[in-house]
């Protein structure tokens, strides 16, 4: 769900005209990179059971690991803020266009805070209830294929136009929150069942590949760059009760699904930031609620203050460096672990 929520929000945002007709292939490349990093996380988990990325940093890199973890938390915080900003912008533009931006952000952040304070179990239950929406979203995507034009994404371009290899990192961005969540868990489940945990990114990646493939097939390789929210625009092209006086029904369902996906992702990221900070600064767990409120306040301020120019200027940079750092930090931890003895 985090994959779909974040991927739907940010992958098209990073698309540039130069990617060409095979933009959907960037998700495939991102998926392959994620699979590799997931194996590294599993190896680290096996070597240092009952620890997460913050613990690994401390064990393997000492004081340097502390700063590494802090930077990792900072990126999670920034990713969460960007997600909040992106979702509330979307609702302000499409649904509640007279509501001031700060009010939408405040309402959204408060809901996230509430979910986050309820804990992992409640968030997990919420996610399992909402997982049906993935099926619904997939069905809607299938409906959208009625306008699909194969000449826009013909397989012949795969060998002729190789620009997607150069921009492969844009696909990797979708998977970053998933990797952030995976690396921050204490769970030992992955070491017993890697295949089961790998199913999650597989389903998410399949959905994103299907969505990006369809977007390019409907709007064309150059048409896709016109829309900052191509999936939203794609939903607007589907003919099902489209004679409805205001928005069509498919678009309304899509907005609801998107809100749900991102809500779960953003609340989990918020929880990880707070727990990570507690772990780094050795603060008691009973302060988690207070920390969550303060972090949420930070997200609210950071999401409210910047204008469109600042957002457009810095969001791609944060996404790029955040993804690069996640990749680098986990790889560094794994390489260091090769020279370290296994803990009992």
């Amino acid at each position, binding site marked *: 769900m985090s994959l779909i929520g974040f991927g739907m929000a940010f992958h098209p945002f990073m698309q540039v005209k130069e990617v060409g007709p095979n933009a959907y292939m960037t998700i495939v490349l991102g998926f392959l990179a994620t699979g590799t990093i997931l194996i590294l996380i599993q190896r680290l988990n096996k070597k240092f059971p009952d620890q997460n990325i913050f613990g690994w940093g401390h064990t393997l890199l000492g004081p340097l690991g502390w700063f590494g973890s802090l930077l990792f938390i900072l990126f999670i915080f920034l990713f969460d803020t960007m997600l909040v900003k992106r979702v509330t912008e979307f*609702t302000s*533009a*499409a649904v*509640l*266009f*007279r*509501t*001031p931006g700060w*009010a*939408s952000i*405040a*309402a959204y952040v*408060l*809901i996230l*805070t*509430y979910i986050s*304070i309820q804990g992992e179990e409640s968030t997990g239950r919420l996610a399992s209830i909402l997982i049906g929406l993935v099926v619904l979203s997939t069905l809607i995507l299938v409906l959208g294929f009625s*306008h699909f*034009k194969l*000449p*826009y994404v*013909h397989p*012949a371009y795969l060998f*002729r136009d190789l620009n997607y290899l150069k921009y492969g990192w844009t696909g990797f961005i979708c998977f970053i929150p998933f990797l952030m969540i995976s690396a921050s868990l204490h769970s030992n489940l992955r070491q017993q069942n890697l295949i089961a945990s790998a199913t999650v990114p597989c389903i998410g990646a399949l959905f994103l590949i299907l969505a990006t493939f369809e977007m390019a097939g*409907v*709007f*064309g*390789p*150059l*048409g896709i760059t*016109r829309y900052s929210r191509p999936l939203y*625009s794609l939903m*607007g*092209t589907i*003919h099902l009760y*489209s*004679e409805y*006086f*205001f*928005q*069509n029904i498919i678009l309304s369902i899509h907005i609801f699904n998107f809100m749900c996906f991102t809500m779960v992702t953003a609340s989990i990221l918020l929880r990880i930031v707070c727990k990570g900070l507690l772990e780094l600064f050795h603060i008691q767990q*009973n302060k988690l*609620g207070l920390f969550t*409120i303060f972090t949420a306040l930070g997200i609210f301020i950071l999401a409210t203050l910047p204008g469109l120019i600042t957002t457009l200027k810095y969001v791609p940079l944060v996404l790029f460096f955040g993804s690069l750092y996640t990749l680098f930090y986990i790889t560094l931890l794994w390489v260091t672990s090769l020279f370290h003895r296994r803990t009992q």
Partner: protein
Amino acid sequence: MKITRCFLTLILLGWIIVTLSGCWDVSPIEDRALNLLIGIDRKDGKYRFLTQIPTLSGLVQTQHPGTDKNREIQKISIAEAPSLVETIQHIEDENYRAFVIGTVKSILLSESVAQKDSLKIITSFIRHPMVSSQTLLFTTTSNIEELIRLSPPYSIQPGLMLVRQQKSALKMARSFPVEAWEFVSRIDNGFPDAYMPIISIDKKDKNYLLEGMKVFKRGEMIGELNPEETYIFGILTGNAQRAFKIVHLKDQVIGIHDVSHQTKIKYKPTKEGRPTFLVTTKAEGTLLEVSPGLKMDPNTLKTIKISIENHLKKDITKVLQKLRRLASDPIGFSNQLKIAGVKNWRQIYRRSSFQVNVEFIYKNDPPAR
């Protein structure tokens, strides 16, 4: 601890309720100027923005005998300004209501606007988050004000009726709808070229007349297809699904009903390297209108079949040559050239020749002879 947690939760829930955004967006329907049909013209460097705004009673007008049919069901607003946004402001000033642009169902562009400004205008609408991507586009050579002021004798709003009329299967033989997103997508990608259906006034029936289309080249309007040629466009794109075909045989009129078409286009350069397209069309239809004197034996049926095939072949070739002359490709030959790896497809397209093959199949044996 439990009390603190409950207190904290209550405060959070309280804040959520207080900040819930719905309150800002409350706007009663009588304070909104909903619109269904927009017309845009350009005169003396200024945009002329015309819109049909349904009256509240007109919006819910029904077939009920109690409904006053003579009551005005819509109000026409016209504004002129150098920019589109300014015209919308003028419309609001005139109506004392918030103009809801998002409810528009069709946009009519005058010929002068469609000629040069179509992309700018349509993308301005697409940029609005509430405007549907499925908004239909039309262009016209008639007086756009007359078109907007036209009130055909329907039981529902003309703006809504126009959409139904354009999308009806039978109508789609001489006119084909184009939605805002598709028009923009064709221009963005540069292949195939864009097109726009023509709307005019049927003065006799006081109705909209949807026939023919304008064709574009790199976003600029460069030519027109008449209703017959538009039908051929429908055949070649597979859009004409329930058309009719009339053929003349020995001074007798033969009418084929429910004609559907399937066309395959293949790029096949000759050995000498001359670009050639193989166009294979399969048409299916039911023989309906036959003159009494005509004997319905296999030979006659074969003669009718050959006549239809020859007619279609001749018409298709004529339209293809016309489009090639205009260097416009709304049909999709460019798709084949792009797949084949041709970089400057338009140049090759202008030099191409067409091999047209048509096959007509009788759909079924009519119950009466």
